């Protein structure tokens, strides 16, 4: 186990667990709401967003909304709720970070024990996971398909969609679309 790896910052369960209020960027929510509202009055905007006038006023001013209000406001803004839990543009939480956060949240483990297991996990992950990362970037493709796919369908569908995307790229490049 390399000593430098053990120095890597671990996600702190205090700030990534369920009580991570400080991770919620309330100021950004208020700013976006104001921006999105534009010339609309608070009353008009609240009606559009489906929240009460007083709630919208408070949230714009920096108060923390409840979950139902938050969900409605995100829908109105057209942004993903996760945006406000990431101070930087987008924060990708890897499965490894998630696992480590869970370890740190486990009351049966001391900090030292959680760090040791995390360190082993990191080593294993570094050694084994890289090969498994898909080489293909995610296709930007909204798919209207059956929600449950029967055996044999996923393979055929994935191949079809990949081939459709390739052909579309070719046609666009050739100026035929």
């Amino acid at each position: 186990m390399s000593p430098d790896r053990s120095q890597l910052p671990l996600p702190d369960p205090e700030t990534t667990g369920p009580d991570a209020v400080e991770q919620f960027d309330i100021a950004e929510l208020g700013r976006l709401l104001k921006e999105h509202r534009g010339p609309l009055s608070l009353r008009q905007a609240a009606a559009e967003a489906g929240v009460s006038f007083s709630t919208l006023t408070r949230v714009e001013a920096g108060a923390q909304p409840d979950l139902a209000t938050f969900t409605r406001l995100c829908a109105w803004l057209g942004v993903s709720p996760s945006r406000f839990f990431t101070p930087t543009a987008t924060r990708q939480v890897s499965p490894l970070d998630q696992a480590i956060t869970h370890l740190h949240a486990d009351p049966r483990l001391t900090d030292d024990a959680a760090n040791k297991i995390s360190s082993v996990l990191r080593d294993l992950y570094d050694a084994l996971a890289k090969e498994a990362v898909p080489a293909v970037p995610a296709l930007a493709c909204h798919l209207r398909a059956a929600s449950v796919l029967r055996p044999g369908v996923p393979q055929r569908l994935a191949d079809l969609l990949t081939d459709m995307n390739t052909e579309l790229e070719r046609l666009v490049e050739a100026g035929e679309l």
Partner: protein
Amino acid sequence: MTLPRGFKANAEREALRLRRELDLSDTDALNVDDLADHLKVKIVSAEKLVSHTRLEELERVQAYAFSAATFQVSGRNIVVTNPLRTPGRRASDVAHELSHLVLKHDLTEIREVNGMPFRTCRPDEEEQATAFGGTLMLPRPLLLGAVRRQWGPAQIAEHYGVTEEMARYRYNTTGVAKQVRGR
């Protein structure tokens, strides 16, 4: 899962606004290909991209496994439809896909099909697109007119080129029959 408050009313307004842009009255049938043109979205039948046989084979393994997809290629949105669908079903599929674009839904969810990652929309956005797609094809004034002529979902579907399923969904969720009866 429920639609955000105010969504349905906004959808009705937006549907009528788009119809005005297309020089259609509130009660005209909407041609989804015209709407796609207007929104500068290309619609391509899947058989132009892959063989018909492969699409039929997929259909044999599971009917309706693939209905439509919107691809983002070089910053452009291209809707790919399944040629094996009926015209009504195709219209519903295209209206649904165009709804995602009108509603500016981001492709934020990752869905894996056989290990192949696809960026797609959230489930609540799917519900919104279905509701908005239905509103685009069958806005309230159109349904009211149809109900006053004593048409049921089957006749509405036939006349306006949508699936009976969609006509029934709009007929039942907009309360138009009740409104006409109440007069």
